[in-house]
């Protein structure tokens, strides 16, 4: 890709999004694509999300336990701290960053390959709105399915914390459960889910942007999928800050 300014990319990104959200030509086909993407981007990510969540939940618990080794602090606080960091930050933002790597690079390289092998041109020639046909199902699939991944991550993360906490005997099951229920604010879950939906949009749309506008050959496809991951991660972190300020203050 020729080096172009930031504003060029932002402008072209919004023009692309306008094309993506044009009225679909044939709902049935879009729906089929949507189901395919749910499977491709969502269901296929369940495993990695579960594994990472279990380990992170465990690590968070051990670290918190290490930090509250003070006879004056009740040990159920370990459960409280683990719960809050998982619900507030880990299951939405961390999982989003990991998915930005997995989903983002797969979207960018898929679209990039279609671009350089003229498959996108072929769609355009037929009169198909290629941007909408290829990108809209991906964005929607992630926005619909990622909240589910986040919920899974919350449950698995907390379970991982409990498992390691009781195994290493830093906390008993009763204390952990007490901690998890102590001063529980359900809004934290809503907050995590709202962030997830926004992040899902960011990662899929930015990755699509970089894939869709690949110029050149397969070398460029690789470069653009790296760019897709880097930029969507940065934007996710920026929006994490903005959303936290908006939703939690």
């Amino acid at each position, binding site marked *: 890709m020729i080096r172009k300014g930031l504003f060029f990319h932002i402008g072209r990104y919004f023009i692309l999004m306008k094309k993506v959200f044009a009225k679909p*030509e*044939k709902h049935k*086909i879009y729906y089929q694509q949507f189901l395919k993407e749910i499977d491709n981007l969502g269901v296929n990510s369940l495993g990695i999300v579960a594994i990472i969540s279990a380990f992170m939940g465990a690590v968070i618990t051990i670290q918190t336990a290490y930090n509250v080794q003070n006879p004056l602090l009740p040990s159920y606080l370990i459960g409280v701290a683990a719960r809050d960091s998982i619900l507030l930050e880990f299951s939405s933002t961390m999982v989003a960053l990991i998915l930005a790597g997995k989903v983002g690079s797969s979207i960018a390289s898929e679209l990039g*390959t*279609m671009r350089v*092998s*003229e*498959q996108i*041109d*072929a769609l*355009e*020639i*037929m*009169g*198909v709105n290629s941007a909408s046909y290829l990108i809209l199902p991906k964005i929607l699939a992630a926005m619909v399915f990622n909240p589910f991944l986040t919920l899974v991550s919350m449950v698995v993360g907390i379970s991982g914390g409990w498992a390691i906490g009781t195994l290493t005997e830093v906390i008993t099951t009763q204390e952990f459960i007490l901690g998890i229920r102590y001063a529980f604010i359900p809004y934290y879950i809503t907050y995590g889910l709202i962030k997830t939906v926004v992040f899902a949009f960011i990662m899929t749309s930015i990755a699509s942007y970089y894939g869709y506008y690949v110029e050149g050959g397969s070398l460029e496809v690789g470069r653009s999928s790296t760019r897709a991951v880097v930029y969507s991660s940065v934007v996710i972190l920026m929006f994490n800050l903005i959303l936290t300020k908006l939703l939690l203050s």
Partner: protein
Amino acid sequence: MIEVKNVTKSFAGRVVLDDISINFEQGKTNLIIGHSGSGKTVLLKCIVGLLEIDKGEILFNSTDFTRMNFKDKKEVRKQIGMLFQGGALFDSSTVEENVRFPLDMFTDMLPHEKRQRVNFCLKCVKLEKVSKLFPSEISGGMKKRVAIARAIALNPKYLLCDEPNSGLDPMTSLVIDSLIKEITEEFNITTIVNTHDMNSVMEIGDKVIFIYKGQKMWEGTKDGIFTADNQHLNDFIFASPMSKKIRSLAKGGGI
């Protein structure tokens, strides 16, 4: 009919198409011939609007395609079948799904009607047997033929083929050529074929346009091509040792 009028196209200051005007006639196979790199592919892409032209007009049945709004453009495009030089098949779909795609997208045909149409198109290119395979599982020439089947699935009014024969053996080339000619005449299509294969020129060249370094050098019929007095054209068609030999024999009255 497709008319190209005074079209100029350049990439970063390098002129690739230089003030080209051509009438592509309906019901005929119009051949664009020229050396590799002379601008044939760029011309096709300009015609269908994949590349923006710098100057000039492109008329589809007398309406200017370049100035149409998005919706009208889309309507025209539904009538275009295009075969890309590299095939451009959808990797993630089988051969059958590739050919069915335009039907799924733009028609309300019933499943069995679609199946019939797909089978018919695949039969035209002699590929009924591979319908369940993916593009990565078939040969380069087969991909080309699938791409042709996909291009004709919707009975296009305009058929544009970028080197339909490259990478095919002479027998299959002949089959493809005669297929293109047949459907062109039967359905009164405006067909444009890019090629540098002289056999195709002899086989289907109702109208032949020779492009040299982005300029139109010569235009005529396949019969006029041997008596043309354009030096570049002669160099192009008599490039092979065999044709040189034949030509000298012909000149000496040996044939």
